[in-house]
């Protein structure tokens, strides 16, 4: 039994009175506790796929199912591409948002909120409003909010795309440490090959529009991994080149199709 099962998913949007195929024949199985990265050129439908899983969009065809083991927990929580941190709530209120919306007991809300504020190093900043935070801190709030909600699966949409390199490395490590502690199933979107290699158990490569899964690559390197190790490993370098070629071909293909 898989944690996430996607079967022959299709999605069309109406754009200027025309149907546009955004996702085509997507079938994915993800095991419990797996960290899966979805990698593809921008505009290929990654966000759309994640939004369908999050229940924010409806599929045009096909089925998705997420195994709901512990009914106390919500099914999924999302970390949004642009910071979805709510500006009129403090750091603390943002992190406890999901728990409050589900009317959890106060003690539990406190415990979860404190734990994840500590985890992402924002305890001191709990009373601040987002306008006073840097981009990296806002994404920490967003991640803490999703994990504090204790969902069955986590959906992350390029959470680090807007950060500078240093911040990105730190947050990637923090994320991995939280993930290893909680053993959650994560579906993570990125367009960075390095990021995918560092984080994933498996990389799913997507084609340019309409998005299809064109490769399913297991990443066997042992954890914990560091960027240095990933860079030094010959296996990983080969995988990098393999992915790079695929993406390169996709982008070129998309260009020639458009012109």
């Amino acid at each position, binding site marked *: 039994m898989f944690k996430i099962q996607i079967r022959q998913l299709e999605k069309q949007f109406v754009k200027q009175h025309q149907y546009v195929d955004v996702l085509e024949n997507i079938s994915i199985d993800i095991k419990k506790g797996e960290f899966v990265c979805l990698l593809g050129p921008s505009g290929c439908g990654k966000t759309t796929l994640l939004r369908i899983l999050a229940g*924010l969009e409806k599929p045009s065809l096909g089925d998705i199912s997420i195994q709901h083991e512990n009914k106390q927990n919500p099914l999924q929580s999302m970390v949004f591409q642009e910071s*979805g941190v709510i500006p*009129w709530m403090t750091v603390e209120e943002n992190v406890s*948002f*999901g728990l409050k*919306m589900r009317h959890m007991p106060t003690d539990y809300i406190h415990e979860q909120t404190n734990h994840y504020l500590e985890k992402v190093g924002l305890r001191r900043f709990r009373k601040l409003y*987002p306008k006073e935070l840097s981009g990296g801190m806002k994404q920490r709030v967003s991640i803490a909010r999703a994990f504090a909600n204790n969902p069955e699966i986590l959906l992350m949409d390029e959470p680090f795309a807007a950060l500078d390199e240093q911040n990105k490395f730190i947050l990637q490590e923090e994320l991995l440490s939280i993930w290893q502690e909680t053993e959650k199933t994560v579906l993570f979107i990125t367009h960075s090959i390095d990021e995918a290699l560092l984080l994933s158990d498996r990389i799913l490569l997507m084609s340019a529009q309409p998005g299809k899964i064109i490769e399913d690559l297991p990443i066997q390197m042992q954890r914990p991994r560091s960027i240095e190790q990933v860079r030094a490993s010959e296996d990983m370098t080969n995988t990098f080149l393999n992915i790079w070629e695929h993406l390169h071909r996709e982008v070129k293909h998309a260009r020639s199709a458009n012109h």
Partner: protein
Amino acid sequence: MRKLIKWFKHQQILTISAPIVLLIAWEFFSRMEILDPRFFPPPTLILQTLIDMGAGGELFHHIGVSLLRIFCGFLLGVIPAICIGLFMGMYKWFKTFFSPIIMIFMPIPTLAMLPIILILFGIGEFSKMVTIAISVFFPVAINTAAGVANIDPIYTDVAKNFQASSKDFFLKIALPGSLPVMLEGIQMGQAIALLTIVAAEMIGANSGIGYVIWMNYKAFLLPEMYVGLLLISFFGYFFSLLLRGLERKLLPWK
């Protein structure tokens, strides 16, 4: 930092200098009778008149009457305006349904409706409050609706994703998210309320600041009339300071 403080002080001096120059010029030209002092009595004389009128006590009665009308009329307009504005922002069907009513009534100056208001509500205090309520209603309702409509859809997605109920969505997202634009509308409404009450009191009342202005004008007591104008200017400034302060309290996240 030092430079900043210096610049700030400079700014403040610049801000108060224009009115002061104006007052001094007025005083001077009036005293020299270059300006006709019967129509433009010197500011010092107006100030003296204010003190005399204040000592008489009747002035406070008029001020109190006007303030009460403004306060009650304001609440009478703002509360339904916020409710309807929030509904219009949140539900498209309600906006489609209600917009024509706003479109029809908004262009009519409230004062032009005064005869109808008097017929409907009599000549008592209530009709004055209704007049203010109507004039305040439109800017507040429109701004509130715009405030909700302008909330970034990502926060709606966040609320949905974290399973917010409609009630929680209303209280935690729609209301606080629309508050900045709503308060701008209330600020506008406050200015309009002051304009409306003075004009309404000039037409059909026997008390209030507007009445003071009109009666003294008709009696050719111009310094007394200017006292009325001075009071309006003062209260206009005072109310907007009050609302600014409220805004700072309500929007610590801005």
